[in-house]
């Protein structure tokens, strides 16, 4: 479907770029369609903290005036974007979904990410809901566009929900233990965690500084790379698809394939079978240190979070939510030696994952992004066959956290639906700084999945106005 026979809010960024440059669509029309989509869905979705409709409309009008004179603002000219509310956006308060910042002054300048998006022509339409200070995976009060009784994951839950439903064409998220990839997985969008350190975190409220990574959520791998390119200041972001037979994929047992919901296991197994039948070479590539990598990620994450929030929580615990207070309190039992052991482990697992890629000659490792699909908001435990239920925080970060410790880039794309019709995400991890090839591989896989499931298969019913 193109916007000509549908709603511009359903376009991808790549489709919108073509329509905008051909004059078939104006920035004002695209912004208006996005805001209309938000007004229709927000009552159930709560993806946004603030919508900045008037500012967005004014910028779109200015861009349209310039475009009529033949001047386009950049690769993101006219593209409506959401920004997670831990990023500074000039003129708006960065509240981080915390009572402790309910009266915080408006940011005086943009975070580097927002500055780069604006420089490329992107139009900010609002700030999206985060888990308090990005420390968790629930993102209350945001809900899942596939089923509003379920969570969107987190901590970039509002960004993923907005992109999935079309109330943003792309959005910024941050990923310290999986906070881009988890909501992307359970909302059926694409999420890109770039290589640690490639993109500046200036103007972004920290969670755990040695793991914090910013990146985009989008509707496709191409769109994610376009946004990444704007953030990184790249000149060329059009991806050439790879031949499937040119891709060698590693499967890492056991860590990434144990304790999965049956629907997740089936969807990922079928996706991998589809890749293999399409010509992708699939090989076993065990990474025996994955569990230790996850443990190191957990320890580093908790220790640094405790340092960031210790004084505030001690001074006035009532101004923080119970999840964060407990996290800080529990983390204060961490001995300094434990943190240093985790940093030693980080050295070891960075080398061992590199060796996995070398030994098996793989381009990427693939796995489920999360062991469970979107959980009900009133029952935050994942249940598996024959084992104890696992808390949502431990479950959702089990697959993602190892790659925060190694720092390599990871893409999540939807790869199927479970028995409840909820999206399942495929996690694709590449070598450091290999974002371009990673997204090319992701785009090639998307093509295969679209051929299998039909165009638009990963779009939630709420986007099409279906009452849930």
């Amino acid at each position, binding site marked *: 479907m193109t916007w000509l026979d549908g709603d511009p809010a359903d376009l991808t960024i790549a489709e919108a770029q073509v329509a905008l440059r051909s004059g078939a669509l104006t920035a004002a029309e695209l912004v208006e369609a996005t805001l209309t989509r938000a007004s229709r869905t927000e009552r159930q979705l709560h993806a946004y903290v603030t919508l900045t409709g008037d500012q967005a409309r004014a910028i779109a009008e200015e861009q349209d005036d310039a475009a009529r004179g033949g001047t386009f603002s950049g690769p993101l000219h006219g593209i409506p974007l959401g920004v997670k509310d831990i990023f500074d956006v000039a003129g708006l308060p960065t509240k981080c979904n915390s009572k402790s910042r309910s009266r915080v002054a408006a940011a005086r300048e943009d975070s580097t990410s927002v500055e780069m998006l604006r420089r490329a022509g992107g139009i900010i339409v609002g700030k999206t809901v985060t888990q308090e200070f990005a420390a968790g995976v629930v993102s209350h009060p945001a809900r899942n566009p596939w089923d509003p009784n379920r969570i969107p994951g987190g901590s970039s839950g509002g960004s993923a929900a907005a992109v999935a439903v079309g109330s943003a064409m792309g959005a910024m998220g941050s990923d310290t233990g999986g906070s881009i990839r988890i909501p992307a997985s359970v909302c059926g969008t694409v999420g890109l965690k770039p290589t*640690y350190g490639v993109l500046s975190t200036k103007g972004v409220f920290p969670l755990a500084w040695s793991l914090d990574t910013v990146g985009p959520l989008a509707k496709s791998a191409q769109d994610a790379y376009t946004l990444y390119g704007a953030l990184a200041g790249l000149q060329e972001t059009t991806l050439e698809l790879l031949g499937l037979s040119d891709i060698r994929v590693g499967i890492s047992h056991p860590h990434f394939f144990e304790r999965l919901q049956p629907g997740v296991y089936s969807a990922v197994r079928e996706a991998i079978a589809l890749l293999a039948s399409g010509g992708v070479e699939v090989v076993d590539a065990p990474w025996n240190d994955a569990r230790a990598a996850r443990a190191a990620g957990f320890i580093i994450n908790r220790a640094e979070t405790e340092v960031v929030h210790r004084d505030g929580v001690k001074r006035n615990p009532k101004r923080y939510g119970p999840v964060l207070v407990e996290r800080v309190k529990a983390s204060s039992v961490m001995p300094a030696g*434990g943190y240093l052991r985790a940093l030693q482990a980080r050295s070891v697992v960075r080398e061992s994952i590199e060796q996995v890629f070398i030994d098996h000659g793989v381009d990427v490792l693939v796995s489920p992004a999360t062991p469970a699909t979107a959980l009900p908001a009133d029952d935050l435990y994942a249940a598996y066959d024959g084992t104890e239920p696992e808390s949502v925080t431990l479950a959702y970060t089990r697959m993602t956290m190892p790659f925060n410790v190694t720092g390599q880039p990871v893409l999540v794309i939807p790869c199927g639906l479970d028995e409840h019709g909820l999206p399942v995400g495929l996690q694709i991890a590449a070598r450091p700084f290999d974002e371009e090839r990673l997204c090319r591989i992701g785009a090639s896989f998307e093509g295969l999945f679209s051929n299998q499931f039909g165009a638009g298969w990963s779009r939630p019913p709420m986007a099409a106005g279906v009452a849930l």
Partner: protein
Amino acid sequence: MEQSESTRAALVGYAKIFGVEITPEEESLERSVQEIIGFLDDLETLDLDGVPPAVAYDPTWPRVNEVLR
């Protein structure tokens, strides 16, 4: 049951060293502390003898968009 009580007492005692009081009602906090101890144990599967801790920021990694500012 007896063993679980003694394990709990050890956990409460351990937390107390760091100034954290875990009351019997705070089962969730107790679980959180247990998780941390469990993950610290998981690190012991690696041979870390003589391994230097990873640096938080690798100075050789470019921060592309800051360079362009």
